[in-house]
Structures are given as structure tokens and as C-alpha cells.
């Protein structure tokens, strides 16, 4: 939330160096990126160890990571969108509904005009949902959660009604699904790293080569990198590009500053001439647009059609990533990656899901070690018990029931929120109804 990390105080006092501000800024960002990279390496290390022990090679195959990426995109997009509205002070639990709008319009436009049109109209559909939420919460001052829930109830009804009147029985669609979309969005292998074509010349597949070497840790990292650079859809590339773009927009532009100020102290912002209502509207509409994109992505990248219930609660998971991403883009992306990975494993095979029990036991065990190191005995005890539980489960069973895998991400969220030591800082005025003229 701080644009600038806290510099040594003395430096600031005497500070006349004009480069300091730039430096301080990028230092904060760099530190966070470094932290996330380290975290990713620890996760890969745990996975690699698990793979060595259990022989569940799927765990770190590029295919798994590729699927994880595709599955992470809709969740991450929704979480990223949520940053825009929550930073502006609007809690948006209606993202699930907006995502449903995205799937329907994505399906309809994809069928009528093609996949990219599907994405475009899906975005617009989601944005319309965001506009509705802004109208209720900002103009009429309705409780944000109440309005969001209402949108979540409204959206499936609208989608169903629209399906009934738009997809005639002869078209291949019906009340609960659309006809197939016309085409798919192109995919690409990045050159050099994943063997992509460059002007007709086939470049080397570096990460693929590394992955095939089957070296401990190195090949696992290779699998990770190959997975997220190969066979990647342009829509996914666009979505990933929105992460740094969102950061830049929110933390480096004047509109972004105004948006964040509305979520921190709207009265102060208004007293300085910031149009708080406008900023909140824009933030909420953008969040709807992101959710709509996420919905359309589900249509174009997975099913190829609109289906009722296609969103499967991903809007809510997006919200969860917002929270444990601490209302920051990179954090949200990391959370989305976690969920995407859990989802991907479930789709691939039972053995790797079972192996994940061991990985979770190791991960939580690591947390326990950290807690002991910090002399936080209560936490150490709680985490040790959980780690031991997973370990026992791993040793005593051969498979994990399908239904359990289905809610793994949700359980993970609860565990992370319940065990995390990190102080989460939500925007100060988040969720509070603001009425114009309070700046008196």
C-alpha cells in the first residue's frame, strides 16, 4: 500500500538527493518480488522432494504447471479486479455474479462472432455488473456485501433467461448452455525458452531440455518455467500482462493515487477536489470488467461454450486471493497460482493428489519450524498437529477421495488465513458507505 518503502529516517531528513525517491520506490517493489521468488523456490523445493519420495512425477511436469497457469488466470483476474474496487473502498462480493455475466456474454459473442469478440463482450458484461454494484453502493449507499449478494442472485437468473431467449433449440444450445464458440484463441510457444517459432525458424526449447534432464530441483524448476512459457494462449498473456500494468496504474499514476485515497480517507480526498464518487465508480466498473474477462476466459479457454454454473465459485476464490495477497497485485497473482496448481493436480491424476498430502505436511511442518524459531508456541503446536495429521493421512491411505480434492483450495485458504502470521492491511475505509459532503 505504500508506494514507497520507509527509508532510513536520517536520509530522508537531510535528503536532497533527487534520485532517492525513485530508488526508494523500486527498492520496495524489488524486495517484494524477491520475497515472492524465494517463496516460489521453497514451494518448488517441497514439490521436488515430494516427487523424489513418492515418485509422483506429474507434480512438477510442465503439463501440470501449464494447466495450473490456465486455471490460475480466471482466479487471478478476478482477484486483480477486486484490488481496483477495494482499494477505492468498495467491497465487491458480487464478482461471482459479474463473472457469470462474463461467461454468458463470452459464450454468446463467441458463438456469434468468434473468441476474441467473446472476450470483449464478456468484459463489457462484467463491467455492466460492476456498474450496477456501483450504482447501489456508491449512489444509493447500500451495504456493499448486501448489494454484492443481490447481484450474485440476480446474475444466474439473467443468464438463464437470456439463454432461453437467445439459444434456440436448433442452434445446439439451450437454457443452460450456448452453442460452441466459432474458433479458439491462438497459442504460442515463447522463443528460446520453450521452443517457439521465430520467423519460421524453430528456436531451441531450453526449459524443455532442462525438464527432460530429470535433475533434482533443476528439472523441477525447468518444468515450472516450461509450463508457463509453452503453449500459452494470447488471452492468458494479456491477462498476465495486466498484473504489472495494474500495479503501474494504481501506484504510479495520478488516477491510481486518487483511487487509493478514496479507499483510505474519502473525506480527505474530496476536500482536495478528488471526485470520490467517480473514482469509486471507475474502480468498481473495472473490477467488474476483470471478472467479466475471467468469465469469458473460462468459455474460450476451457469449455468452448457457455455453461450454467461454469464459474464454480471462482469469483469467491478471487476474493480470497485478494485477502491473502494483502490487497496487492503480486500477492494476488501468487495466491491465484496456488489455487491454479491445486486445481490442475485434481484434473491430472490421483497419485499426485495423494502425494500432495506429503507436500502439505512438509509445508505446514516448515511453518511449525518457523514458529518454534520465533518462539510462538501456540502456533508451533497448532501447525505441528496439522502437519502430523497430514503426514499420518499420507501414510495411512493410498488415494484421496475426489470430493476432497474438489475443496482443497478452499481448505488451503482457511488454513492460510488461520495460520498466517502476516499482518494484513486492508484499505482503511474499505466497505464503508461514503456520502458526499462528509468533508466538513
Amino acid at each position: 500500500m505504500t508506494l514507497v518503502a520507509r527509508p532510513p529516517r536520517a536520509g530522508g531528513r537531510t535528503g536532497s538527493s533527487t534520485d532517492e525517491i525513485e530508488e526508494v520506490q523500486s527498492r520496495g517493489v524489488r524486495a517484494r518480488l524477491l520475497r515472492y521468488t524465494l517463496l516460489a523456490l521453497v514451494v518448488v523445493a517441497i514439490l521436488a522432494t515430494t516427487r523424489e519420495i513418492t515418485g509422483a512425477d506429474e507434480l512438477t511436469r510442465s503439463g501440470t504447471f501449464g494447466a495450473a497457469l490456465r486455471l490460475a488466470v480466471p482466479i487471478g483476474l478476478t482477484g486483480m479486479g477486486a484490488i481496483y474496487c477495494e482499494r477505492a473502498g468498495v467491497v465487491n462480493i458480487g464478482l461471482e455474479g459479474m463473472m457469470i455475466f462474463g461467461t454468458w456474454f463470452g459464450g454468446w459473442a463467441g458463438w456469434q462472432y468468434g473468441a476474441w469478440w467473446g472476450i470483449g463482450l464478456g468484459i463489457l458484461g462484467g463491467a455492466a455488473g460492476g456498474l450496477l454494484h456501483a450504482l447501489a453502493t456508491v449512489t444509493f449507499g447500500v451495504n456493499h456485501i448486501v448489494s454484492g449478494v443481490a447481484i450474485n442472485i440476480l446474475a444466474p437468473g439473467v443468464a438463464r433467461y437470456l439463454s432461453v431467449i437467445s439459444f434456440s433449440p436448433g442452434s445446439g444450445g439451450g437454457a443452460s448452455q450456448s452453442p460452441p464458440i466459432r474458433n479458439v484463441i491462438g497459442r504460442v510457444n515463447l522463443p528460446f525458452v520453450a521452443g517457439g517459432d521465430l520467423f519460421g525458424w524453430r528456436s531451441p526449447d531450453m526449459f524443455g531440455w532442462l525438464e527432460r534432464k530429470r535433475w533434482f530441483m533443476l528439472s523441477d524448476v525447468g518444468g515450472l518455467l516450461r509450463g508457463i512459457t509453452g503453449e500459452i494462449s494470447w488471452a492468458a498473456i494479456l491477462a498476465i500482462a495486466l498484473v504489472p500494468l495494474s500495479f503501474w496504474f494504481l501506484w504510479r499514476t495520478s488516477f491510481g493515487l486518487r483511487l487509493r485515497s478514496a479507499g483510505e480517507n474519502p473525506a480527505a480526498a474530496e476536500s482536495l477536489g478528488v471526485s470520490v464518487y467517480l473514482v469509486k465508480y471507475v474502480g468498481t466498473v473495472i473490477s467488474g470488467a476483470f471478472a467479466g474477462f475471467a468469465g469469458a476466459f473460462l468459455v474460450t479457454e476451457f469449455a468452448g461454450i457457455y455453461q450454467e454454473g461454469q464459474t464454480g465459485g471462482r469469483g469467491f476464490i478471487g476474493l480470497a486471493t485478494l485477502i491473502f495477497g494483502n490487497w496487492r497485485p503480486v500477492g494476488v497473482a501468487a495466491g491465484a497460482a496456488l489455487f491454479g496448481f491445486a486445481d490442475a493436480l485434481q484434473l491430472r491424476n490421483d497419485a499426485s493428489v495423494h502425494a500432495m498430502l506429503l507436500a502439505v505436511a512438509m509445508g505446514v511442518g516448515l511453518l511449525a519450524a518457523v514458529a518454534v524459531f520465533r518462539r510462538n508456541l501456540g502456533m508451533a503446536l497448532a501447525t505441528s498437529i496439522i502437519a502430523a495429521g497430514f503426514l499420518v493421512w499420507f501414510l495411512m491411505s493410498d488415494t484421496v477421495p475426489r470430493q476432497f480434492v474438489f475443496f482443497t483450495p478452499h481448505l488451503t485458504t482457511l488454513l492460510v488465513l488461520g495460520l498466517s502470521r502476516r499482518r494484513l492491511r486492508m484499505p482503511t475505509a474499505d466497505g464503508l458507505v461514503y456520502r458526499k459532503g462528509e468533508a466538513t
Partner: protein
Amino acid sequence: MNVWSRRLRRFAIGLLGPVVAIGFALALSAVILKISGHDPWQAFRAMYDYGKTRASIISMLNRSIPYYITGLAVAIGFKMNLFNIGVEGQYRLAAVIAAWAGAAVKFPAPIHVLFIIAVAAAVGASLGGITAILKVTRNVHEVITSIMLNTISTGLAAYLLAAHFAQKNKPGDLIIKTKEIPESGWFPSLNGLLSRIGIELPIGSNLQGFIVVAVLLGVAYYFLVWRTRFGYDLRASGINPFAAEASGVDPNRMVVTTLLLSGGVAGLAGLSQVLGFFHRYTIDFPTGLGFTGIGIALLGRNHPVGIAFGSLLFAFLERSAQVLDLEGVPKEIVVIMQGVMILSIVIAYEVVHRLVEIQERKAVVEATHEAPPGMEVAAA
């Protein structure tokens, strides 16, 4: 006299919100119907004619039972400004476990029913309890926890049903279900009572006896919230937790108690079906009741009578929509109507609330010739 006229006015103002919202929802659905080439008047007419038949009324009453109970469950939380969005998972897991437990034991009739009710309430309450504990000890927002718990309990319910509770079906019967509950565990219908007072039901219609439980829950809810000190503490914590705390309310205990109660009530929502209709849990058990319950609590302003109206209205819409297909109108229009109603009602309440607030300040200024708060001025 003065008090009564003021109460009457407040009542009238209170009605304004729902009337405006329902009117708006009807108008908007009419426009949508018109645009998609149907005659709204004819559609509404058909719904009304079909909805007023005796069979429809019985069906509507039966449908309204789970809505009413979920509405109450949500309202308990709302009264304390807690959002128990987890009703969905709570009633589903409660229904599957209660149905299994009910089929596994054999008690004399009333005890058997009470046992099943107790199991369901306990399951719902324990899910509510998890939400509460995470909120109190780890400061995790209840909305997040209950959203996660919804998926977890749905998955858990599916797992338990498939892996442990399902009976062995005869060949050809593909519906996964628990064993049937013995007859001592069924809740009797009210048909006998109705015929004794001269109301004969059409063949195949049963008024579920569980409606009595729902009504009792409503009465208990009213009494608890508006007539007891606990209810005062609950409402005070919802309005201003800091002031409530200073007045001696233990906020953490309040959160835990409220979520246990809310979850416990939510656990009962599926029982009218388990005890009075299916006599077991099956794979095609109704879903989505929890989310509808949120809408109904909003519609009824967390008041037991309002919630009753809300659940009857939703039940009426769903029942009478059955006729729309015959009229060539997509019955999905009703879902839009419900959604619009909820959204417009919260907006209407907010607008009415602001109008009332302005009125009240004016009244104070007139009565005291003093400046309202927020304007630091001299007394004239």
C-alpha cells in the same frame, strides 16, 4: 395518541420500501417480457390464476418452509451485523448427516424426530462455530470463512453420501440416497388437522407439518431478539460493537453465540424435506436455499413477519411460474424478478431510511430550536 400516530406513520414508511421494490421488479420484468415478445399482462394473469388454486397454495406453503428457516438463520446474524453466508453449506451437510443418523437409529416417534432435529442443529451449529472461532481468534472475516466452508461442506456432504451413507440400490435405480428413515422419524402432515376444520386438500397434496416448527422458530426469534437482554446485546453489538462492549457485552462471546445459533437454525432448513417428504437424503436434494435465504432476510428486513412474507412471495413466484411454460413464456423470468426485487428492495430501504432520517432531524430542530449535529452554530 401521538405515539400511535407516529407508530402508524413509521409502519406506513416501513411498507413503502417493499411496495416500491416489488412494483419496480414487476415493471422491469414486464419490460423484459415485452422486449422478448411476450405479453406481460397475460403472463402475470396466468401466474395469478394458477397461483391461487388450492394445490398451489399448499405447494407454496411447503416451499416457503425452508426459505423461512434459512431467512431466519441469516437474519440472526444480520441483527448482529454478522454475515452468515454459510447457510448453504450448513443446511446441506446437516441434512445429509441427520438423514443418515435418523435412518441408523430407532426411537419412539416424537423422540426420533427430536433426535434428527437435534443432529441437524448440531451439525449446522458446529459449522457456524468454526466460522466464529476463526473470526474471534484469528480475525478472519466471517464472509470469507463461510464462503470457503460452503464449498467444503458441499464436498464433504457429497463424499459422505457417496462413500459412507448411500444405501445399496436395486439394479436400475441410479439415484444415490441414504436409507429410508423409519416411520417413527417422520414428521406428520397437517392434512388431518385441515380436514377436521373443513379444508379438504386435493389428492396428492400434503401440507408439511414442519411448518409448525418454522412458525415456532419465528416466534422464538422474535422473542429472543426483541424481548430479552440477550437480544438487546445482540442488536446493540450489531449497531455499535464498541458501545456495546463498553456497556458490558463480551464481543467475542456474542460472535460465537450468534453464529452457533444462526448455524443451528440453518441446520434445520432441509428438514422439512427430510422429515416430511423424501424421508431420506437423496442426490437431488434442493440446493441454493441458503442464498435465497439471504435475499429473503433482506426482503423481510430481518423481522419474523417480514421474512414470512418474503418467503411466501418467493414460493408463490416459483410455484406460479410453472404455468408460464404452458403460456409459451420462459419461466426463468421469475428468477430475474426475484433478483431485481432483492436489489431494488435494498436500494428502496436505503432511500426511505435517508428520507426518514431527514424527517427526524427536522422534527428535533422544530421541537428544540437547536442546531442539528454537525453544524456548529449558536443557538438563536
